[in-house]
């Protein structure tokens, strides 16, 4: 608990400056808008806030479905990607195939398949979940594969000399050295899952941040557009931030490793 608190404290100390900058910036935009210096497509921050104040139901009713759709897709992808990554590392013969399939899925404009998926899976939330999963799988797979190979040969030899069993090697060497990479993958994948869910909602959904964004765009309701953009960033940032926080506590010995792209 103490470590969690101290981590939070550290995080706060590190973030108060950007926070202050943001608040000052918002104040400047507000003043500029009041002075009619800004074009129509930039609303005053107070207008956006007023939108939340006037219709909190609008925010909650749209934020919740997107959040759970993105999260379910994300976790499905996480389970499959870590399993496939471990399989690829332990079974060399499958390494190339698994990696190439993942690269293919990642380089195909996956949202282009949204109408196809809608035909197959129906028009419910399944499509959005599937696309969130497909959009977020790649970093997690790369993280798992790179992480499980991160232990260097001397460490492996040491485990061998100590006559460690396979499960002991896994527990004391491979998993600890894989964790930083795994977390890096999990962090990067979270915003992609949100992006996948929202774009899938553009293709057809009655609820969700994406649907709200589309309605607002077509009715040229600028404050609502900005509100939905804000919610998008919030969701993506929250997904990233939660993992970053868990990482700080769980992998205290090393973080911010770089994934190969």
């Amino acid at each position: 608990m103490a470590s969690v608190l101290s981590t939070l404290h550290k995080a706060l100390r590190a973030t108060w400056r950007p926070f202050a900058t943001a608040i000052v910036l918002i104040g400047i935009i507000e003043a500029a808008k009041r002075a009619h210096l800004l074009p129509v497509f930039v609303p005053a921050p107070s207008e956006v806030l007023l939108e939340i104040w006037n219709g909190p139901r609008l925010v909650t009713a749209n934020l919740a479905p997107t959040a759970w759709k993105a999260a379910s897709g994300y976790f499905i992808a996480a389970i499959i990607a870590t399993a496939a990554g471990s399989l690829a590392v332990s079974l060399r013969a499958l390494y190339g195939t698994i990696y190439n399939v993942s690269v293919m899925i990642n380089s195909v404009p996956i949202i282009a398949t949204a109408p196809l998926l809608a035909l197959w899976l129906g028009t419910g939330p399944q499509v959005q979940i599937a696309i969130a999963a497909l959009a977020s799988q790649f970093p997690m797979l790369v993280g798992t594969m790179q992480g499980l190979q991160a232990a260097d040969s001397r460490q492996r030899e040491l485990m061998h000399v100590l006559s460690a069993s396979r499960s002991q090697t896994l527990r004391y060497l491979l998993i600890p050295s894989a964790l930083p990479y795994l977390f890096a993958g999990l962090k990067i994948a979270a915003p992609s899952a949100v992006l996948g869910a929202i774009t899938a909602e553009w293709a057809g959904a009655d609820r969700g941040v994406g649907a709200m964004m589309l309605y607002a765009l077509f009715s040229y309701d600028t404050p609502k557009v900005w509100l939905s953009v804000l919610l998008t960033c919030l969701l993506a940032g929250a997904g990233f931030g939660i993992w970053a926080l868990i990482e700080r506590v769980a992998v205290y010995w090393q973080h911010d490793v770089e994934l190969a792209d």
Partner: protein
Amino acid sequence: MSGETLTFIVKRLTQITVGVAVFVAAWHLTVIALRIPKYLVPLPLDVARAFQLHWPVIASHAGFTVSAAALGLTASTLFAIAVALSFSMNRGIAQASLPVVLVFRSTPVAAVAPIMMLIFGRGISTSMAVVTIVSFFPMLVNMMRGLESADRTAAELLHVYGASRWQQLRLIRIPFALPYLFTGLRVAGSSAILGAMLSEWITGTKGLGNLILDSGEMRETDLLWAAVLTSVVIALAVFWTTSAGEKRLLRWTNR
């Protein structure tokens, strides 16, 4: 072109042809064997007929998407090169503007696109702007990494020769950065096509994204499949050409 590269190309082409043939055959047989209804998965021949019937439409839509992506990617590449060069020449500029760059990195396309549409309206300029912003970050990161990657001893040699900063840049840093340019293009290329299609979805301008959406809603499955396949082929073509360029240059710098 030497004979070696020619045989390589021929080999690669046969590989691709065989792969495509196997894929199409498997597709056809699965649909027939499992009795999948036509509106779910059409037969390859039906898709081919849709291509034959609608190719002017598909080509013009694909042209819009590709040109939006290409123009946006060019703009962001030039921009990223300029920024990376100024960062590598001057530490102060780098430190002052990196936070802004980080903000750009963490904004998802879904958030950028609607704002660009409010600014640029319903046209190709929205797609271009979205592509530029989306592909800027991977380009910048890779260009910065590339300019840092110059061989230590080579740089020291130039220093001993009393080379100016400009000469250092021209003779060492830029050549060493070239493979990274292709790494950046490979990563940014797929997101550029994606960005272009996404913005077509919300703006409703001409383009593959919109064609896919429309034909999906009209239940024109054959045309839908033809359009999806076109977009996949474009994306894979971009991926393969950029990774081939990257590999070639990597051999050249001996990394």
